[in-house]
């Protein structure tokens, strides 16, 4: 077992996918680690924004929620939800935004459920709901999705489609009237999955060191193409140091 845990690897794998100069929409938890780490690893000119209205925050401590006062620190401007979502819906700015999301369920085309398990009218499990996820997934040109890799979470059909991925395939978003694109990648605790440029179906891009492609499939209700799969490069010393010493020294998100 190498000297890092799955969360650390997930945060680093996501951080590597953030391009310099991008506007990074951040949710809570591990997505904040990825956004903060990216600024030090590969995207020094990336900018962090929150749906609550904080634009270009200079985070010093990990916020526990996007409403945490910590997101306000050193921002270029702090306003409110209306401005933040308008920035993402506006095509001039929205085109540069990469959104980092999570969900309870995901399907082959990257559609997300964060609302209920079971029947919507009488759910067996109720989750928090969309929050800003459906908005971000509708507006921006690139999204990265964090998932726990379990069979009940990678499902053939989501119980409730909260946030649009590629909907029913290549033409799904255009038919629905959505701008932007569906997910670029899914980062789980076992692997990194991409979406095929032609079919918009999920495929295995890289499996974590010590994980087999078959183990990835065994934990999904649907199957994905394995032909492009390779082992993910393990985190470097530098990446781990940034994550542990600069981003989350209190290990509030990374855990014990």
């Amino acid at each position, binding site marked *: 077992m190498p000297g890092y845990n799955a969360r650390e690897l997930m945060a680093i794998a996501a951080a590597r996918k953030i391009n310099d100069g991008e506007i990074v929409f951040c949710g809570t938890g591990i997505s904040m680690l990825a956004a903060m780490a990216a600024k030090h690893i590969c995207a020094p000119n990336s900018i962090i924004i929150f749906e609550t209205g904080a634009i270009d925050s200079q985070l010093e401590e990990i916020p526990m929620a996007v409403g945490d006062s910590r997101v306000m620190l050193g921002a270029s401007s702090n306003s*409110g939800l209306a401005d933040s979502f308008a920035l993402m819906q506006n095509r001039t700015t929205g085109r540069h935004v990469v959104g980092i999301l999570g969900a309870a369920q995901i399907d082959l085309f990257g559609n997300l459920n964060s609302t209920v398990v079971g029947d919507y009218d009488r759910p067996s499990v109720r989750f928090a709901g969309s929050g800003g996820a459906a908005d971000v997934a509708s507006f921006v040109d690139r999204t990265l999705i964090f998932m726990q890799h379990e069979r009940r979470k990678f499902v053939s059909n989501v119980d409730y489609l909260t946030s649009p991925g590629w909907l029913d395939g290549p033409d799904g978003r255009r038919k629905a009237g*959505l701008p932007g694109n569906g997910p670029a990648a899914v980062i789980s605790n076992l692997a990194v999955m991409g979406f095929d440029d032609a079919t918009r179906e999920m495929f295995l891009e890289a499996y974590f060191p010590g994980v087999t492609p078959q183990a990835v499939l065994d934990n999904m209700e649907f199957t994905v193409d394995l032909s492009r799969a390779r082992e993910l490069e393990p985190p470097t010393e530098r990446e781990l140091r940034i994550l542990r010493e600069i981003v989350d020294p209190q290990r509030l998100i990374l855990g014990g």
Partner: protein
Amino acid sequence: MDTSSEKVMDLKTAVARFVPDGAHISIGGFTCNRNPMAAVYEIIRQRKTGLHLYAHSNGQGVDELVGAGCVARVEIAYAGTGRFAPTCIRFRKAVENGTIAVEDYSNYQMTLRFLAGAMGVPFLPTRSALGTDIIRRWGFSEALRRSNPRLPNEKLVVMDNPFGGWAETDRVVLVPAIRPDVTLLHVQKAGRDGTARIEGLTFADVEQAKAARHVIVTCEDLADAGELRAHPHLNQLPGILLDAVVHVPHGAYPTACYRYYDYDPAFLNDYRTAATDDERYTRYLRDWIFEPSDHREQHARIPEGRLAAIQADPHTGYAKGLKR
């Protein structure tokens, strides 16, 4: 709204006057920040019932109103309190037990619905959630909507762009305006005339207040109106919009108030524990809300040192290095 220049009253009076049973209400703040908790606790203390609650991600206040049984219906985007409760626990129980009716929207849709109410238009357009179950599935039945004049007949309406492909848009979804009977906010500073100033993120507080027929604001500091009027561009709410100004220091506790205090992680963790068990939650309601007769008595029960620990650092606006 109220054009008079004296709005100060106590919390009991304000809630009794502007929050009748069955009222349509909205509360300010976001997840664990600047919820009008003192007002929420007073609503619970006065045992209001049948409330119709409009929320985007109003967090802790929503869960306590639902948990105390004040709420019949909620239109909401997100019921969570960050890491302290990824899904608000009493909200989750109420939905799974079918004791409250829920209609789901997104945060931007709810924000636009308040903005539409503030602007005095019946709807606003967006491209959010096209192709999703937020548009396809209704939590409130068509029968309920048609029988209740306080609800629009449609949850949402999808429409082709009447300006052709203008602005690279073929289709939009129209979200219906919200007009709460009353919106309750907690802010840093307000004047006796109702002039209100929020520091830091405003979330959707301003839209929620302007959409409402009545507005109750609790504040950390009851400021001199002249001082606030010396820099009018820093005031988000003109006095005429407010019906009641109530001076309630720590009125957002246990949620945060930027530049004044942080959220209380110890309280929020204890709350989570209490919320997971009905008996414990009943004791929580009795000890923390019903036994104390008002905010002052309630806060006398906060364990020694808690408020000192969450005191905001003047530079950052939160409690640096707070044990979370």
